[in-house]
């Protein structure tokens, strides 16, 4: 994950070329190098997403931003698919809604998400998406994994029960802070985010205590100590930071 210029789907075109396309029936346009998600958001068409954050590399992992390309009927992740001339994109249909709800069900069943006692209650992207997409119960069995909480850091803590493996923490730590404290270990459903070589967070030699991971965590998996149920607040910092860096360059 060390290349910030992560590959984006679609042909690499000369910059500043304008493409016109339809999203949900609306005629919209964007620059050739933009993704469907970027253009949709610019036109106030919201697409659900959990792993993607503007300012970090796009990885297409959570699959919630899947949209349908009308010509082929194929589903593509909006966060990593470049716009193309004449493209018709459907961001919301019965089929897409069903898939998104099922994906959320899989997430809720994967770890132990107890909204009622979570620091992020009311301010959790997972919880809010479930509400918005009408996921009112989980039909698959809860896996109830036995996963730890690491509270060894003096100000911050990680509760793996609430982690959805979006890897925002991994990317912001690597691509913005430059510390690369976070990474992922293990395979499949046993994958976990780890600090350094799976040392306790408090023993990490690379963590700069900057807290960017906590700010970007979509759930209550990463939080400041001393935060109680529903007390977690988040500050939007990445857009300012990236804008500042751009001006400096």
């Amino acid at each position: 994950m060390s290349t910030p210029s992560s590959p984006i789907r679609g042909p690499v075109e000369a910059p500043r070329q304008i493409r016109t396309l339809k999203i949900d029936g609306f005629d919209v346009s964007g620059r050739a190098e933009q993704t469907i998600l970027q253009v949709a958001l610019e036109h106030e068409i919201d697409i659900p997403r959990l792993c993607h954050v503007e300012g970090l590399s796009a990885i297409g992992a959570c699959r919630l931003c899947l949209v349908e390309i009308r010509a082929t009927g194929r589903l593509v992740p909006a966060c990593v698919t470049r716009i193309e001339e004449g493209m018709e994109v459907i961001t919301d249909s019965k089929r897409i809604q069903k898939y998104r709800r099922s994906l959320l069900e899989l997430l809720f069943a994967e770890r132990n998400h107890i909204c009622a006692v979570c620091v992020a209650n009311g301010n959790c992207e997972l919880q809010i998406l479930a509400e918005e997409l009408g996921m009112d119960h989980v039909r698959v069995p809860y896996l109830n994994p036995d996963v730890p909480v690491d509270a060894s850091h003096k100000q911050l803590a990680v509760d793996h029960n609430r982690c959805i493996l979006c890897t925002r923490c991994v990317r912001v730590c690597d691509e913005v802070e430059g510390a690369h404290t976070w990474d992922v270990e293990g395979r499949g459903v046993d994958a976990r985010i780890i600090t350094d070589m799976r040392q306790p967070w408090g023993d990490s030699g690379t963590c700069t205590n900057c807290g960017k991971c906590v700010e970007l965590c979509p759930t209550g998996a990463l939080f400041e100590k001393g935060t109680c149920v529903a007390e977690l607040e988040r500050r939007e910092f990445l857009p300012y930071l990236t804008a500042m860096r751009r001006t400096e360059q």
Partner: protein
Amino acid sequence: MIPEELKDVAAQWQEQAGQYAHQVYVCTAAGCLSSNSDQVLESLQKEVKDRDLHEQCLVKGVGCMGLCAGGPLVAVQPDGVLYAHVTPEQAPAIVDALGDEPAADLEAIEADAPFYERQEPIALENCGRVDPESIEECIGADGYAALARCLTALSPTEVVNVISKSGLRGRGGAGYPTGLKWSTVEKARAERKFVVCNADEGDPGAFMDRSILEGDPHRILEGMAIAAYAVGADQGYVYIRAEYPLAIERLRKAIRQAKRMDLLGGDIMGSNFSFDIQLRLGAGAFVCGEETALMASIEGKRGTPRPRPPYPANYGLWGYPTLINNVETFANIGPILREGADWFAGIGTEKSKGTKVFALAGSVLNTGLIEVPMGTTLREIIFDIGGGIPDGRAFKAVQTGGPSGGCIPEQYLDVAVDYESLRELGSIMGSGGMIVMDETACMVDVAKFFMEFCRTESCGHCLPCRAGTPQMLGLLDRITRGEAVMRDLEMLEELCDLVRNTALCGLGQTAPNPVLSTLRYFRDEYLAHIEDRTCPAGKCKMRSTTEVNR
């Protein structure tokens, strides 16, 4: 070495080999080696030496001869005799029978047995014939001649055209036209390009690539060098799983030998074309056979796939155009350039040209490695070449394509095998694993086996595969324990649809295939498990209570 010298080496070796009145080949591929063929080789060498025959009789270790079920295998030429299940103690009897009728008390296999008669070796043409550890011998068997011809007589574009015209398609599974891939990389403009050989063979029951690498490693190096010349690459990698120590050792040796003879490295054969090959060992992750995960692994990152496009041909290793082909694909390159595109295109079916190597495994008499023309029927493969099902049991299904493939039932045994026909049947060609199952196999249990594999091998990057495979496995487990209700089957089918349509990479998208194909052909068995709480094959231990609890 220049091309003329190459011919000299070949001629020299052929002359040398011609001096021997007898040649005894002992299979030293992993299968036979595991039943002590190295000791057989040793005792034969000793026997020949003791009788002072070593000037008339050459005894050598060779690569896979195919009929793994008969291992250790020993072939005697020019007598054309093949002995199976040879023990070190039988060495004197074999030497006694040289130039004579096969020794009576040894198990001899007829040269015209259907197992060999129906095959058409191209990728495997030198496997079981040459000593994989001797580059001179490989050169004597036409090795590197095609590379020499490319460097002296063909432009890179001409090489690409030959491959395109041959109709060769990727042997790793998806069947993408090889020529088209080469041409994309050739046309890409970049400072650097790479060629990668995907030897991360991971399907359960598959050993095609391993056998080729163990039996004829120089063929792969030559294929890669030709590819590099054609697309303009100067660096190659063989990504090979660390579980193949013998193949790794032989590849290493082959690379060293080839470099010493100027067949790899700087200014190959006096031309201005340079190409080096390095090995990269996989650490046991199945998903690293997926090309984008493989590249991440070569770059030293966590082996997880990334979305495509961009395809490696445009954006590959470290962002440079990269050609990735499978072992067997590279193994076909030399012969195609040697014999011509038309010759290759004359073999096989309309859309699938050439031959395919299959690893025949499971409930079949002649388990082993075979190579047949595309278009051969499953029945010919399993019953003629494979010798049918042992112990008089009935055939039930054949699983092709590994965890991404599916099970094909008896009524489709006469379908001619090619990329399209298998896809229509709900399976895939895949890399060539073929597992035969008889009446004692429970198809739900088979689906569960493959789902367990996919769950374990999911990399965890994308949500549907990571969190969907354990759920599908859980449901299959409930079914095999007799605890499932119809709603569970519906849920299973829904999850199959979800994962197939939303997962990021090929591994995830095809993970439901073993379930979908067994549901398609053996739905009755699922229903028997659920509604009658019985396993028709008698494989699953069903819970006696009908209590439905989660």
